[in-house]
Structures are given as structure tokens and as C-alpha cells.
């Protein structure tokens, strides 16, 4: 009898092995499947009075071949790879946007300043002025487009965060219910339900694509899942939901809220798509928006300042070239940024290309002395380009004392002498508002202009500086303010006089490009690491069909042999019966 029993046990064990091998083969392409192995052991032997006779085999366990350490590593690298992947996807869009020739501010700035130069070349040409307005319109459009595109990226980030949070919650629920199922299936006896565990591990793997996770296995077979700096997502069978909350300071900024009260834990989250989305928003999209806004504001400030210094074709004071203008405290009007920048003037005649003051050299001067107006300070809110000076500035050179005596608006009491030695001072600039003692008119005001003195004036050579509007404006061919506007293209006016407009844009492009490039490289690195770790993990847990095929034959032969035990035992029994008959 025992032989039949042994044969039966062999058949059962081998059947189990065959089934497990078949299970392995059938799940060769199942995501998250870990190969299983039947562990056989001998059954308790029978004591036959003096010795033990073996009683066959039994399946002691179906083991899941699994390495916790490697699994954790795979998750870590998955999270990191996914973070850089998401980062680089979004950063590349910004990168493309800023670098594209059709949308780039670089070409917009170039076209605009080219048109400014054309107006400076032909200040009376309405056509050139119209082209300049068009160029400026294109430039403001570029700013607006960039702003709305970056806005759209921000919306995409918000939308993705929203979708991802929902996915996290679904996965959490899945993990929790599998935890439940596993606890029930193991029934407290510690028999591992391998396929349920595979499913749960697979869900955790999927979760790690969304955010970095940490896991902790409980003695009852359940796994607790934590994110961020230890915020628990799944505890046994219960789940704590994430939800989208908006930044109270910026309603356009979705943040990750934790638990029913929605505590903002964005700062604690790293890894996965969520980590990628949060960091690309923080390090690429938002800085790019801020820098584009700063560039727009800087352009408005400097171009408006220069434009309002000048006079239009009709001799009126130049208005704001771009709107909205920089608010002057205490006014709290809308500040200019890339989104709202627009043209302030529509009539080409209103472009202020002429300078508000002109120098007249006395025709009888015998020297080669020259006075040029180098700059005009229009920063005073009350500045009016049509009346920069209250009256003539009069210069007379005294060759004996090597100095110009200057009077303003005929006010002899406020006249001063300005030392000028052609040997040492030629081409030097003098700010007439900053002289000591001050040069003032009868009202005590100083002229807000800077002049450049050059050449060798003779004794009593004289010059006057007057408003261009004095005696009626006729200097329609004056292009000096146009040249000053064009000069802003190369002038280092931004960021404390260190960057031109083009420089600032270049730096912005470089920043985004560098971050994108870094993310690309990091992604490649993490991908490599992930592949290596996956390979190691798979080499432990993955199904190899050749191996399984060999096992199949091995177990098949064992099964055949076990069948033979039954046959033999049958023969033995028949022989026994035959002997009785």
C-alpha cells in the first residue's frame, strides 16, 4: 500500500511542479510577475519496527523568487528616471519655444532695432516710421505669445499634477485592497499568496513612477507605503488621499495637498512625474516667466525713458512708446510685463526721433571748439520734452582762464565757470545739473542735460543751447533721439548696467537650455542605472523559457517514473492476488 501512496505523493508533487513551471511559462510576459518554484520535501517516514521506510514526497511551499533589496532599488531608479523624464519633456518645450526662430525674442528685438535704425537714417520718412511701429508691434506680440505659451505650460503642469494625484489615489486604493486580500489569503498561517503579492508589488512599482515611495512590510503580510518625508499613503487596508490644493498666494499654481485637510506637501515630494512636474515648474517655467517679465519691464522702462526725452515729427513731447508704463509711486497702476506689454502709440508721426534741445555755434567763432548734447535726464515725472530749458544756456569761452562761463536763462547771478582745457578735457562730458557751484536760472533750477565739450575754442567763442521748440519746431530732420533709441540695442542697461536686452534673453535661453540639457543627461544616467538594476532584478525573478522547458522535461520524466510506481505497485498487488488464487 505504501508504494501506491508513495507513487501518489510523487505524482501530486510532480504535478505541482509541472503546474508551477507551466504557470511560469504562461506568465513570461506578465508585468510584475516573479517566477515561482515548488519546494518539495520528504514526507514523514513510517516506522517499521526497527527502521524507517520513506513515505514519499510532499510540496512544502511554492516559493516566489524575489529580492526585496533589488526591488527597492528598481523603484528608486524608476522614480528618479521618471522625474528627469517628465522634467526634460516640459523643459524641452520651453527650450523649443525660446529657441524657435519664429517666436524667439532675439529676432524680434533685432527686427525692431533694425527698424529704429531705419527711422534714424530717415527721420522724416513716414514709411520708415510705420515699419518701426510694425516692428514694435511684432516684438510686443512675441512677448505676449511667449507669455501665453509659458502660461499654457503652467496650465499643463497643473493639469498633469491633477491627473497624477488621481492616479496616485487609485493606486493607493488598489494597494490597500490587495493588502486586505493578502492578509485574508495568508489566513494568519503565513502562506504567501504569491500572485497577489506580485500584483501589489506591481502597483507599488507603478506608484514609484509617479512619486518616490518607501515601503514597510508588516508581519501580517500587508505593506505600508510612504511618500515624501514619511507621509503614509497606505497603512494596512486604509488609504490617505492626496488632493490638489491651490497656492493661496498664486491661484494659478496647483500644489499637492495631503489628507482631508489638504496640507501642502509639495516641497517634501520628490521623484516620479510629480517630482518632475514640481521641479520643472519651479526651476524652468516660473523663472522663465519672471525673466521674460523683467525683460519686458526693462524694455518698457528704458525705451519709454528715451522716447519721452524726444520730440515727435510735429514737435510734441514723445509719449510712452510702450504701455503700460512703469508706475511712478504712489500710483499703483498696472506694472508692465510680458503679458500686457503693448504699443503706446499708433500714429507714426508720434515717434519721437528729434532731440528736445539744440546747440547753436556762433558763426563768428574762430576756434574748433564744439559743444554737443550727450544726454538728457528725463527721469523727473514732470519732465516735458517741449520745454527742457526755461531759456537759453549761453556759453562763452575764456582762453586766458581756460574755462567756459555759462549762464542759464540770462540769470547772471547763477552763472558759473566750467574749466575746459582742450589739451586734457576734450571729449569729456559734463552733467550741467551736477556742477558745483550749481548752474541755475532765476527759479533756482539747473538744466538737466549732459554736454560733451571738444575741440580747441578760441577766446570769446560762444555757443547757445536752446529748446528745439523755441521759435517753432522745425528740426524734423533731427535724428539724435532716434540714434539714442537705437543705441539701446547694444547698451548694457539691464541688471545694473551689465546686460543688454539681447544679453538678458540669451542668458534666459542659456538657463533653460542648461537645465534641459542637465535633465537629459541625468535621465540617461538614471535610465542606465535602472536598466542595470532591472537586469539584476530580472535575473533573479524573471522567467527564462529555456530553463522552464528543461524543468518541464525534468518534471515530466519524474511524473512518468511516478506513474511507473503506480504500475509496479499494481503488478505487485496482482502478483499477490495471483498467489492467493
Amino acid at each position, binding site marked *: 500500500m505504501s508504494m501506491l501512496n508513495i507513487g501518489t505523493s510523487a505524482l501530486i508533487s510532480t504535478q505541482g511542479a509541472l503546474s508551477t513551471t507551466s504557470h511560469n511559462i504562461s506568465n*513570461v510576459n506578465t508585468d510584475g510577475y516573479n517566477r515561482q518554484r515548488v519546494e518539495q520535501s520528504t514526507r514523514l517516514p513510517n516506522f517499521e519496527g526497527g527502521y524507517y521506510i520513506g513515505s514519499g514526497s510532499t510540496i512544502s511551499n511554492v516559493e516566489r523568487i524575489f529580492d526585496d533589496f533589488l526591488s527597492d532599488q528598481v523603484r528608486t531608479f524608476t522614480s528618479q528616471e521618471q522625474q528627469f523624464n517628465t522634467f526634460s519633456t516640459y*523643459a524641452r518645450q520651453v*527650450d523649443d519655444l*525660446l*529657441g524657435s526662430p519664429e517666436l524667439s525674442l*532675439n*529676432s524680434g*528685438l*533685432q527686427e525692431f532695432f*533694425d527698424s529704429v*535704425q*531705419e527711422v534714424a*537714417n*530717415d*527721420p*522724416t*520718412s513716414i514709411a520708415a516710421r510705420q515699419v518701426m511701429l510694425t516692428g514694435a508691434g511684432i516684438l510686443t506680440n512675441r512677448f505676449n505669445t511667449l507669455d501665453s505659451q509659458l502660461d499654457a505650460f503652467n496650465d499643463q503642469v497643473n493639469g498633469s499634477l491633477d491627473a497624477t494625484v488621481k492616479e496616485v489615489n487609485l493606486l493607493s486604493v488598489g494597494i490597500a485592497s490587495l493588502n486586505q486580500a493578502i492578509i485574508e489569503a495568508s489566513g494568519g498561517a503565513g502562506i504567501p499568496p504569491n500572485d497577489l503579492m506580485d500584483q501589489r508589488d506591481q502597483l507599488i512599482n507603478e506608484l514609484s513612477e509617479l512619486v518616490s515611495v518607501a515601503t514597510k512590510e508588516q508581519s501580517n503580510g500587508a505593506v505600508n507605503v510612504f511618500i515624501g518625508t514619511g507621509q503614509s499613503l497606505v497603512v494596512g487596508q486604509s488609504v490617505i488621499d492626496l488632493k490638489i490644493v491651490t497656492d493661496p498666494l498664486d491661484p494659478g499654481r496647483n500644489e499637492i495637498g495631503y489628507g482631508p485637510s489638504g496640507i501642502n506637501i509639495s516641497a517634501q515630494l520628490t521623484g516620479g512625474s510629480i517630482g518632475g512636474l514640481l521641479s520643472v515648474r519651479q526651476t524652468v517655467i516660473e523663472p522663465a516667466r519672471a525673466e521674460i517679465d523683467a525683460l519686458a519691464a526693462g524694455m518698457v522702462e528704458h525705451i519709454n525713458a528715451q522716447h519721452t526725452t524726444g520730440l515727435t515729427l510735429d514737435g510734441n513731447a514723445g509719449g510712452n512708446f510702450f504701455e503700460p508704463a512703469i508706475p511712478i509711486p504712489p500710483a499703483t497702476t498696472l506694472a508692465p510685463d510680458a503679458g500686457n506689454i503693448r504699443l503706446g502709440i499708433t500714429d507714426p508721426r508720434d515717434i519721437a526721433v528729434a532731440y528736445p534741445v*539744440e*546747440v547753436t555755434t556762433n*558763426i*563768428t567763432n*574762430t576756434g574748433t571748439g564744439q559743444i554737443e548734447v550727450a544726454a538728457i535726464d528725463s527721469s523727473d515725472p514732470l519732465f516735458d520734452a517741449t520745454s527742457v530749458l526755461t531759456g537759453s544756456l549761453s556759453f562763452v569761452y575764456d*582762453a*586766458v582762464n581756460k574755462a567756459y562761463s555759462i549762464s542759464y536763462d540770462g540769470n547772471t547771478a547763477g552763472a558759473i565757470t566750467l574749466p575746459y582745457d582742450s589739451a586734457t578735457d576734450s571729449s569729456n562730458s559734463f552733467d550741467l545739473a551736477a556742477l558745483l557751484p550749481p548752474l541755475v536760472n532765476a527759479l533756482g533750477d539747473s538744466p538737466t542735460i549732459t554736454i560733451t565739450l571738444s575741440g580747441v575754442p*578760441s*577766446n*570769446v567763442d560762444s555757443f547757445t543751447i536752446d529748446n*528745439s521748440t523755441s521759435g517753432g519746431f*522745425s*528740426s*524734423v*530732420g*533731427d*535724428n*539724435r533721439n532716434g*540714434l539714442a533709441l*537705437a543705441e539701446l*540695442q*547694444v547698451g548694457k542697461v539691464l541688471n545694473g548696467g551689465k546686460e543688454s536686452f*539681447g544679453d538678458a*534673453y*540669451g542668458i534666459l*535661453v*542659456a538657463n*533653460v*537650455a*542648461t537645465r*534641459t*540639457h542637465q535633465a*537629459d543627461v541625468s535621465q540617461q544616467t538614471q535610465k542606465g542605472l535602472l*536598466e542595470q538594476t*532591472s*537586469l539584476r532584478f*530580472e*535575473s533573479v*525573478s*524573471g*522567467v*527564462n523559457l529555456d*530553463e522552464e522547458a528543461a524543468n518541464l522535461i525534468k518534471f515530466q520524466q519524474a511524473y512518468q517514473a511516478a506513474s511507473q510506481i503506480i504500475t509496479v505497485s499494481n503488478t505487485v498487488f496482482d502478483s499477490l492476488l495471483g498467489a492467493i488464487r
Partner: protein
Amino acid sequence: MRVSTAYLFDQNLTAMLNQQTALGKTQLQVSTGKEIINPSDDPSASVQILNLQREFSLTEQYLVNADKAENRQTIEEGTLQSATSMLQRIKELAVQGLNDTNTQADRQAIAVEINQLNEQLLALANTRDSNGDYLFSGFNSSTQPYQTINGSYQGDEGQRSMQVGAGVRIETNDPGNAIFEAPLIETSVSTTGTGTGTLQIISDTGVGDIFANTLSTTGSHFSTTAMTVSDYSGANNASFDVDGIAVSLTTNYGSIAGTVTEIQNQLDASSPGTYSVSTDASDRLVIAGAGRSSTTVISSPATTATATAAPMTLANMNFATSGVAGHFELSDDTVTNMIIALDGNDYSAGGDAAGVQMAADITATLNLAGSNTVASWQVDVTGVSGHLVFTSGEAGASATVPTLNNVGADLTTAGLTAVTTEAYQQELEITPDSGGVELF
């Protein structure tokens, strides 16, 4: 190592996809002809590209500007060439008109032609550029610079600059009054005398005005800042004209007031009550015409300044120190730009050559180490007031008065006085008070 079958396939697939991605990128590079498609492909290179694009576009615009500037200048050049040839023709006609063999009809024909040329010159002065802007009216480019031949200039002196390079601007026009008008010189000056000084008119107040505005003087008797028409000894006379009235100064009138009175008298003799001669607070000569707006100021400093523009040459004079080492010292208490020439070599302040050294500041000393004799010397005392000291030996060593040969006449010319202050020194004072280099 075990390899999972599924993973094996995955890896092969990934490798293939990677290659496809790389191929796709290369194809994109080929089709666009660009190595860098996105800035992130090479951040630092892409920023350079942006900068270069900017430079390139800027330079292109500069080229456009330069073309426009050249156009305007070509128009101006052509106009000025035409004007020059017309003036040439007018000159020819004027010369032709001088000929006494011309009949009345001939002269009339010449007058008609000159008139026509004048009209054409007017048309040239009113030339416009391709944009319709008047080329010769400064910034007032919509204003016709001259309405009639004798009309006054309607433009201003603005010059339109164009940016043709980074920091390079080129002016593309000239104001008409600088080209088509020139001040008439109505006052003439002549000088007589043996000195090298000249008195010349630098400018006039302009067309139609009567007075010369500024007289400037050069030469050994006159300084650029002091009108000096006569030397101390009265050996050099000077004369000048005021509106054709000759003023001749032939002697030392002793004081500023004396000279002023003399000039006033001479002017009144020809045109009583027309002019008033005075000096201003700086002792500058002012000749004002009665009822006239313009004033002739002969610039001159107060009595404290002195010196001459041209070098004071005392070529015949030599200096010997009786066989002992001596030196040459020029003490200068007003300015530092003095030049001493010895034997034809210039030693300027601060120079140092062949044992001859000269300090840069107040006191300059020339030590004659090798040779005790200087054959000729020349001192530029422009703006200098001080003492020129010749020393042989030092006090107590060889107290010999150095010999100054052939100095008499030159000293007189230069208005210098030789004084002996020490036994071993000859000293020339170059002070305004002692010298004849001052009129007043």
C-alpha cells in the same frame, strides 16, 4: 547570469528604439543643416549662436546704414563739385571782366552769366535728398535753406549722423551756412618794424558787419594774449586799420591809459565820435563803435601775463664760463612748458641728454659738464616769466662773471635786461615789468 526571456526581448527593442531616435536626430540635423536644433543640444554654443546672430544682424544693419550715408554724401559731394565748378566759372568771368578792352555789352553779358550762375548756386544750396529732405538746412530738413540769393539761412547747424558701426557715427550732411556763406573780413591790420611779430585778424563778425571781432597777435613783440604793437624801446612800430582808418603806434606811450588815448585820438581824427576806445576789467583793449552793436575786443591779459608765441632767438650770443664748469638756469615762476635750445638741440622741461639735465618744475638747470662754451642758444619763453641765469663755478670757487658775447642787440630786441646779481652770474630777467614785451 540568468537572463529573463522577456527582458532579453525588451532590451533588444530598447536598443533598436535608441538607434532609431539617434538616426532621427541625425536626419533632422541633415535636413535642417544645423548641428544644434534645440538650445539644450549644446547650451553654451547656442548662446554663442544667439550672440553671433545678433552681431550679424547688427552688422547687416550697419552696412545698410553705411549705404544710406554714402548715398547722402554722394549727393552732397556731387552738389559741392557743381558749386565749385560754378565758382571757378565766376572767377574766370570776374577776371575777364577786369580787362579794359571789354565793352559795355561784354560786361553786361558777363553780369548776366554771373547772375545765372548765382541762381544755379542757389538751386544747389537748396538740394534735396532722395527722401525729399533739404540736404543743406541742418535738422530743419523740411525748410528750404535759402529763399533768395541774398536771403538769410533758414536752417540750423544740425548734422544728421548715421550709425555705421559699433560706436561709429558718420555725419551725412553739412549745414548750408558753413558751406555757402563765409564771413567777410572788413578790417585789415598791418605792422611795421624790425620785430617778427604780426598782428592779424582771426575773424569778422560776419557778412555785412563792420568790425573785426577779434584781433590776435603773434610774434616776439606780441603775445597771443597780449596785443603788443610796440616794444619797450619804441624801436618797433605797429599799425592797424579800423574800418580803413589807420592807427599807427610808433612809440611807447608809457601806460595803458596813454595808449588808449593815442588810439582814440587817431580814430577821432578821421571819424570823430564814431568810436570809443577803452579797456575792460582785464585790461583788454575794447574798440566800440558808437551806435553799433559789435565791439572789437583785442584780447589781452592783465599786466601779470607775458611772453611771446615765437621763440626768442638770440642766435649770435654765446656763453662762456672762463674754463670752469658752469650751468644754465631758467627759473620759471609761471608755466612749465619752456624749451631751451643749445647748439641746435632742444632741451625741454624734463629732458635729459648728454650731461645736460633740466628739471621739470619751477627751476630748470642746465649743467655744462663737458664743454664750457655754448655757441648759440635759444630760449622759448612762451608764457614764461622768470629769470634766466648763467653761472660759472659757484660762489667762492671761481667767482668769475660768465661772458655773454654779442648779446647787446638781441637783448634789446627781446626787451631783456642783463643784471649782475652775483659775482659769478649773469642774469636776464624775463619779467613783464622789466621787459619791453608789453605794450601796457
